[in-house]
Structure formats: structure tokens, C-alpha cells
């Protein structure tokens, strides 16, 4: 009886050890892989960057938006790009005003690039037809959950227009900056 109990215990120990040893051996490479695979989670976009995009003179004060490329240095994993277009903004100035309104050209719906609608009376995203007024408001009904993303904009003493460029999460109602 005692002998049998001992052998049962031994049997359980053997099974448990086999599972643990085998498990540890096979999970080690998997763990190493997953660890490296999760690396992008700790990479950050780097927050807002104040980037000069144009000069005040280039934005006529006629209330019509103009598209400007946002050009800055960019890193993509192992490659460094010098002065690359990293996005685009729509800038606009009301009559007689020096204040510049800046809208990110990235559609808040699914991330396509917002263009002028055929006919030029409003903005329109070519992917899912989200339409926006020139001040970025939603023209309903629209698939977009929120208005176009406004960006902070500074006009320097020398007339340089700089935009605080950043990206926002697409497809949600709240304007949440990408981490």
C-alpha cells in the first residue's frame, strides 16, 4: 500500500517535471520572440513638433484653405530621412486677419488624406466621402466621428507660419493625440 502511494507520488512528480522542463524549454524561444515583437509598443511618436511650413504671404486672406506639406526630419527604424514630407496641413486666413487656422490634412475617420471636394465648396476625403467645412466642421451625414483636427499655429515676427504638428487617433469621437 505504502509502496503504491509512493509510486503514485513519483508518477505525479515525473509528469509535473516533464511538463515543467518541456514547457520551459519550448517557451524560452517563444518568449524571446514575443518580447522583441512587442518592441513597437514602447516606441513613441514624440509629441507635437513646431515646424515652419510657409510664410504668411503665401496664405491669401480670402477664407479659402491652401494645402502645405509639413517637412521635417523623420526616422523610420534604421533609416533617417532628412527634410521629408511627413504630412500635410490646410491653412486658411479670413479677410483682413493675420490669424492662421491650421487643420491637419489627415482624415479623422480612417487616416486618408483630405482633399478639396470636386467643385471646391468644401473639404472631402476621397476614401469614404467624409465632408468638412473650411473651418473643419463635419458636413453631416458623415462617416467621420469628429471634425478635422485643428493644429496650433504660430506666426513669427518675420511672417513664418509654424504648425505644431502631431497625429491623432483615427475613428474615435474624442481628439486623442497619438502617443
Amino acid at each position, binding site marked *: 500500500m505504502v509502496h503504491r502511494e509512493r509510486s503514485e507520488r513519483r508518477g505525479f512528480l515525473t509528469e509535473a517535471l516533464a511538463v515543467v522542463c518541456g514547457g520551459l524549454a519550448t517557451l524560452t524561444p517563444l518568449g524571446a520572440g514575443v518580447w522583441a515583437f512587442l518592441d513597437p509598443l514602447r516606441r513613441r511618436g514624440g509629441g507635437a513638433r513646431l515646424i515652419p511650413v510657409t510664410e504668411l504671404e503665401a496664405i491669401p486672406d480670402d477664407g479659402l484653405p491652401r494645402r502645405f506639406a509639413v517637412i521635417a526630419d523623420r526616422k523610420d*527604424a534604421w533609416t533617417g530621412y532628412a527634410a521629408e514630407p511627413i504630412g500635410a496641413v490646410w491653412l486658411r486666413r479670413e479677410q483682413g486677419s493675420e490669424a492662421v487656422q491650421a487643420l491637419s490634412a489627415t482624415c479623422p475617420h480612417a487616416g486618408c*488624406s483630405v482633399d478639396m471636394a470636386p467643385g471646391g465648396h468644401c473639404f472631402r476625403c476621397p476614401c469614404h*466621402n467624409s465632408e468638412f467645412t473650411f473651418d473643419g466642421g463635419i458636413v453631416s451625414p458623415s462617416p467621420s466621428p469628429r471634425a478635422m483636427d485643428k493644429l496650433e499655429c504660430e506666426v513669427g515676427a518675420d511672417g513664418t507660419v509654424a504648425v505644431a504638428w502631431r497625429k491623432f487617433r483615427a475613428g474615435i469621437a474624442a481628439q486623442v493625440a497619438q502617443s
Partner: protein
Amino acid sequence: MSDTTRRTTPGAGKGPLGRLADFLDDRTGFRALVHEALFERVPGGARWRYVWGSTLVFAFMTQVVTGLFLWANYAPSAQTAWESVFYIQHEMTGGWLLRGIHHVMAQAMVVLLALHLLQVVIDGAYKAPREVNFWLGLVLMMLVLGMALTGYLLPWDQKGYWATIVATNLAGIVPFVGPSLQQLVVGGPDYGHHTLTRFFALHAGFLPATLVLFLVVHLALFRKHGLHAKQPITRPDAMFWPDQVLKDAVAMLAVMAVVLGVILVPAVRTMLAGGAVDWGHVGAELGAPADPSESYAAARPEWYFLFLFQFLKVFEGWGATGEFLGAIVVPGLIMAVMFLMPIIGGWRLGHRFNVAFTLGIVAGAGLLTALALDEDYCSLWIDRASLADAEKLADETAGDDAKIAAALGHDATRIAAMRKKLATLEAYRNSRAFLAASRQARIDADRAVELAGRPERIPPTGALDLVRQDPLTRGPRLFGLLEGRDCASCHAHVDPQAADAATRFAAASAPNLYGFGSAAWVRGLLDPDRVAGPEYYGNTAHKDGDMVGYVRDEMGDAEKWKPAEIEAVTAALAAEAGLPDADATPAQVEQGRALIASAERCGSCHNFRDNGTGLGTAPDLTGWGSREWIAGLVANPAQERFYGDDNDRMPAFEKLLSPQQIGLIADWLRGAWYRAETGHRHAAR
């Protein structure tokens, strides 16, 4: 092993081959395996309706084989993905066929999947004891769709890039894990190298490996339960080999024939029409290289995902809830119902529900696909003439409700009718914009391929760099030709021979720049009948200026200017531009230069080389029309060297554009860009 097996197994003779087979069989038992694989009983005999599963396995094997060979030539990174696919498609022997088969078979696979699933549901093959196998099948379906989605990005062209942005942003709205999931798949906060390496690892590694695992179990369970025979069984049973295998093989051949047909029919039609086939353009399409800064208005998913794309539009106006419902909840619920089908099927009327549900989904997807296609292509069948009144009203009122009501006399019936028409007009305009964008996308793609095919090859910075520095691609955009902005908001750029040239000249407020620098352009400028027309100075402040007066009064007087002299000046100016007329002789150019320099002629106002006139009275003609001259003028036309204080409204573009961009405009205006036929940069005109 039984005697029957020995007798029926092929190759069991007693020659040397037979003895070798015996030797191997003793040590491996392969005959039993072969027997197991081939000698399955098919209740009621072989049937065509049983071929769908086999064709799917065949399609998958085709993808594995072609995929491995593509892999042997593909390099996933932002500077090499498009470039290596270009090389496969346009340079490698048979590359177009390899890629074409992979591309078209992927689409065939989606169709076969749908057929297989439909048949399993309609035949009730998901019921006990085959529930687990049905679930495995659904997992396999999702894996195949996952491979289709990830494969779309790999060429790193505009189409795949923008479709992937949409797809991954949709993944980002999944509650809680969405943003992390998106960042993991994209490989960071931005799209780039790691998006490609990860999509490639998913497409060629994780997903197919998982698929093979599930497929093995799927097939093992299929064998365990046997074929789900069509009832009632009226014919005698048959063996899988060779009766059903023959039918399967014929079906596979048919699938392959269809795939090859899709690839080759356009080429065959070109050949029959007597044209030469460019094999690089046969099979799978390759768009222009992905450019994050260049919006892509023709962005659409592959046709089998169009219904999902269109489905999102159903929730227009629902805001974030709609997005969440359309992209996550409803597709999730549909998949959940499908997974529950084996259980639902056990209830009374459950099977009927399952069949109706599946047919409903297929019909719904079909309808949504048709709607999506209609939205994009409706301008091809809408009669524009019938919308003329709506078009006029829309332009007059700019879509303002009150103005529309007033224009229609506040008549409710007319307003309602007009609303409908205006909606059709908008659909028409949107479709036109999409088709124009698709056309432009093809032009850009062809141009990228032409540039990549230069003898110098693609620089290490990648093909995108080539495209961004190409005057032919960038010029019209910088000029604003596509949108009527920038230079094009004042200047026309129209061939004077074009049918609508006159109207477009009239609409412009500055000279036509088509062919600027060429002898043809100068000839028009020096023509007394044309210089004051809208093609040149007609719509500018210079209309009544000294130049117009001189051309009309002096050059128009054959006593003062002989036609040969005007022709000599023309030749000399074109030579200054570096765009010499083919007919011009050196003597003519010399004579022209002397006339330009002469204080009695052009030199009375214009500075030319060292004629001593000096700057300030009229534009300097030294190097007129050259790249440097045009770039200088575009940078700041109010310089003393150009128009000085007489500059009429033209802005100094040095404030708006970089020197490189201004150079691209100058090159484009001069027609200086690479063309494959000549193999070097040249003037296109």
C-alpha cells in the same frame, strides 16, 4: 498490410522497382499511408459537387508555390519593397506570370471559399458530428482573408499603402486593445520598414503556418467523418481514387484555366488587335510607390473587401458609434452567428435559419459591392445632359438651401425634384473625381515604372525619390494643373492646337506657357495677330505695353522687319532656351542674335549679353527660356533682370517653393525629363 492492398496499390510489381517499394514499405509502411489517402469510399459515387474543398486546397498550394518563388525575389523594406516587386514584374523572365498567378489565385481563393462555405451550410454538413470541423473551416476562412489583407500592402504602392492605413486605423478602434494592436501590427507609431516586415512575416510566415496546422486537422477530421454525401444515395459507392480524384483534378485545371484566362485575356486581345504586348503590364497591377505625402484619391480595397468598405458608409452620421458598429460589432456578430450555426442547426427550423442567414449575408455583400461599384462608376452611365439644370443651379447657389428654394419659387414639389437631381449630380461629380483619380494613378504608376527602368537603375534612396524629382510627375502638380491652383490659377498650359484652346486661353489671366522656350512659342509671341490675344498678353497689364505695341507696329510692318529676320530672332531665342528648332541653321541663329542685340531692334529695350542696354527696361534676354532663366523668373519676377516694377501680379514663388521645386517647374515647362524611348533627358517638344 492486407493482400487486397498489395494487389491494388500501384507499383507493387516484382521488378527492381517493386522490390525497392517492398523494401521501403517494410521500413516506412508508406503503402498503408497511400492507401489511407486514396482509397476513401465516396458514398453514392463521385460527384462534381464535392470538388470545392479540393480546389481550395489546390488554390492554397498554388499560393504556397508561387509565394515561395516570389519570396526568393522580394525584399521587404520601405526602399526595396516596391523596387523588388517592380523588378519581378518588369525585369525578370516570367516574373509577370508568377506574380499574376499569385495575385489572381488569391482572388479565386476568396470566391472558392465563399462557394465551399455556401455548400457546407446548404447541405447541412456542419451538423453533428462535424461541428468542430465547421469551426476549423471558419478559422481557415479568417486566416485566408488575413493573408489577402496583409498581401495587399507588400508591393508598397499607393493603393496598398492607403488601404492598409484605413484597415489598421479600423483595428485601432477595437475597445481597450485597439491602439496597442494597431501599433504592434504597424510596427510603431508610423508606417514604414516595420510595417512591411511585420505584414510580410504575417503573410508568409505566421498566417500560412497556422493555416497549415488547421488545414491538417480539418482534413484529418474530414476523413474521420467521411464525406458528407448528398442524400438520397441512389448510385453505388465509388473510390476516391481515381473517380473523385479525376473530377477534382479537372476542377483544379478549370480553376487554373480561369486564373490564366484572367491574366492573359487582355494581352491576347492586344495581340489580336495587332498591338505589341508589354508583358510587364500583364497580370497583377503595380501602382506608383507609396508616398505618405501624396494623397491618393483612388484608394479602394481589393474588390472582395469592397462590401465592408461600403458597409461603413451605411452608418454615415452615426459618428464614432457607427464606425464601431460597422467595422467591429456587426462583422463580429455575423462571425459569432456563423460559429453558432452547428448549435442553431440542431433546433427546429435552425437549419433553415442558417441557410437563410448565409444567403442573406452573401446577397447583402453582393448588394453592397454593387453599390460601391455604382458610386465609383455611375458617371459612365448617368446622362450628364439631364443634369444640366441642376448643374447650373448648383453653380449659381453654391448649394445654399435658401437660394435654391428662392430660385425654384418656393415650390415644394420642384424643390423635392431638384434635391433628387442635385443628389444625382453630386454622385456624378464624385464618380468623375474617382475616375479621374484612377486615371491619374495609372499615369503615375506607368511613369514610376518608366523611371525605374532607366539604365542607371533606382538609386539606393528608392523609387520614391525618383518620382519626387521627376519634372513630368511633379511639374503639373506644382504648376497646379490638376486642381487649377498656383501657376495654373493664372496661366494656361494648353496646346494651341487643342479643340478647347480658345476658351481656356480666354479663362486665363496670364500667358499660355505650353511649349514655353520653344520656337513655336516665340513665333506666336512675335506674331502681331497673336501677341495681344489671351494666349499671350491679352489678359495682362502688358496688353497695352511697349512689347505689344512694338510687335504690332514694327514687326508687323514688313518694311521694317522682314519675315526672315523674325524667323532668325525666333531661332536665336529658342537656341538661348536650349530648345533649338530642328530647322534652324547656325547662320540663322547668329543673325538672330545680332538682331536681338542691336540697339535698333530688340536691343533698344532688352539687355542681351554685352549689348550694353542694361537691366530695368525689359526682361533680360540672355539665356532666355533656359532652366536658370525660368527658375530666376519664378523665384522673383520683380527682379530688375525680369519685369522689375512692371511685374503684373505674379508672386515671387521663392517664398512659397523650394529651389528644387522651382527647378522642377522650370524643367517641366521646358519639357526636360527622362523618356524611355531615347534613354536620356531630353526636350519632349
